[in-house]
């Protein structure tokens, strides 16, 4: 409930931003509830419930589905029995065959069937819910346990960031938009990017797409990754022909930022990247390799790899994951598509 209170308190301030920051969640967090069939049975005598749960659980454990509650209360007043319990998983095949009886399900007499009614098939959620939305949908089928991730809930309800954090996001995205416009004036695609160290608030690199310049792979994110490297005394390219591409030399950035490892910066560890539009698969993977902390983008792209075509930021099979938010200055970022350097000298 706490986020709700905060939300109300800051509601007026939030109205100062005509855009919404939206978390780009993983497929696991976004998927609809998937159901599977189980055998359940009414518990006719409430006093038998705890014994039945213990004994049935020993015979048919639900080890792979710890989120499923074994017993549910029967809500309706006119129900002939107070509780219902899961007996065991039913395969899709069993579903088509004739319903099994209690004696068929417990053939060896290991279970004292007293207190159990005739079994029936019902549908229960396969996966543990990870968001409140999934929890509510799952619980409408069968009771499940839910360990709420406060951070996801806050992000989804739009109150993860304070107004001052949003103001700083907005100013960083403005820099990215300006970089995009400077690039466009040199005949480049109007896409901009900025890298910020959130620990110090310092802008480490500002750049724009250079794919129509000397190298077709120099998308805005790739440019900024190299500009950060330049700032650390490395880098593979020279951007001296592009005044819209700049970096902060690390000599100006030597104070002990918490994001520095061993006192030295390591590629993009701990840094945030602002991008006017969703990056492609190459750039999204480059950000995995660069160990970026968070990515904020303005508008989705039809071939984007952070939410549209792929979820490159949250794959369990890659060795680094980062958080992604979209929607910052979305309208201005969308308008960049029509920005031509020729009309706006």
């Amino acid at each position: 409930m706490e986020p709700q209170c905060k939300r109300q308190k800051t509601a007026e301030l939030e109205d100062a931003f005509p855009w919404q920051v939206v978390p780009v969640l993983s497929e696991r967090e976004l998927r609809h509830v998937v159901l599977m069939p189980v055998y359940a049975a009414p518990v006719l005598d409430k006093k038998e419930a705890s014994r039945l749960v213990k004994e049935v659980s020993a015979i048919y454990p639900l080890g792979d589905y710890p989120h499923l509650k074994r017993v549910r209360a029967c809500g309706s007043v006119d129900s002939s029995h107070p509780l219902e319990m899961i007996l065991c998983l039913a395969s899709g095949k069993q579903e088509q065959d004739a319903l099994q009886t209690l004696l068929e399900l417990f053939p060896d007499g290991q279970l004292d069937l007293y207190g159990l009614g005739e079994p029936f098939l019902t549908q229960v959620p396969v996966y543990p819910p990870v968001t409140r939305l999934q929890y509510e949908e799952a619980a409408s089928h069968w009771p499940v346990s839910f360990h709420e991730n406060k951070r996801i809930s806050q992000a989804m309800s739009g109150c993860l960031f304070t107004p001052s954090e949003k103001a700083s996001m907005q100013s960083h995205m403005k820099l990215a938009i300006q970089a995009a416009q400077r690039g466009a004036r040199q005949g480049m695609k109007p896409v901009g990017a900025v890298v910020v160290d959130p620990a110090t608030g310092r802008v480490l690199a500002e750049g724009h797409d250079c794919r129509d310049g000397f190298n077709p792979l120099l998308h805005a994110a790739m440019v900024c990754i190299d500009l950060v490297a330049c700032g650390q005394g490395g880098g593979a390219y020279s951007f001296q022909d592009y005044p819209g591409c700049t970096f902060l030399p690390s000599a100006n950035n030597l104070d002990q930022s918490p994001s520095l490892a061993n006192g030295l910066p390591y590629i993009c560890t701990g840094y945030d990247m602002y991008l006017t539009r969703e990056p492609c698969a190459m750039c999204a993977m480059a950000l995995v390799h660069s160990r970026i902390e968070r990515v904020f983008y303005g508008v989705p792209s039809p071939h984007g790899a952070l939410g549209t075509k792929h979820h490159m930021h949250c794959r369990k099979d890659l060795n680094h994951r980062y958080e992604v938010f979209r929607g910052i200055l979305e309208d201005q970022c969308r308008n960049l598509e029509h920005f031509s350097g020729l009309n706006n000298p």
Partner: protein
Amino acid sequence: MEAAETEAWMDRAIDMAKKALENGEVPVGCLMVYNNEIIGKGKNEVNETKNATRHAEMVAIDQVIDWCCQHKKDPEEVFGHTVLYVTVEPCIMCAAALRMMKIPLVIYGCQNERFGGCGSVLNISSATLTDTGEPFQCIAGYQSEEAVEMLKTFYRQENPNAPKSKVRKKECFN
């Protein structure tokens, strides 16, 4: 294409990977071959440049672009007739880059279980992707044992440039 010829090119790619290993880089090497001529050679240069995207393939692509400039050739025509020989399956980033450069054929040594973009983690090489160049053909398995051996040697040593692992307290989604 003759197998012996492929082996010979792959030997040269292995030599590049050895150089990367000597420099303390992840040992991956590659060649770009156009009309039987090497027009690009790459090795991993991530630590040297402090840029995590400087994989062998990206370095070699830049060399081919430079070569086209010097020889007044059309890059699109050159990349369209170039074969990449690389010791390890290209990662997701490089596979996307190779698509965008429209390289038709990639011959590689061992699989890249951690980052592979030609089937191991994602299948960028053959997927239907709008606005991301063209799919390319892959032939795997040339001198894979030697490529794997070098990677094992590298990962036995600790990467001296990587930060000490620190326990993260921050709650994070995903």
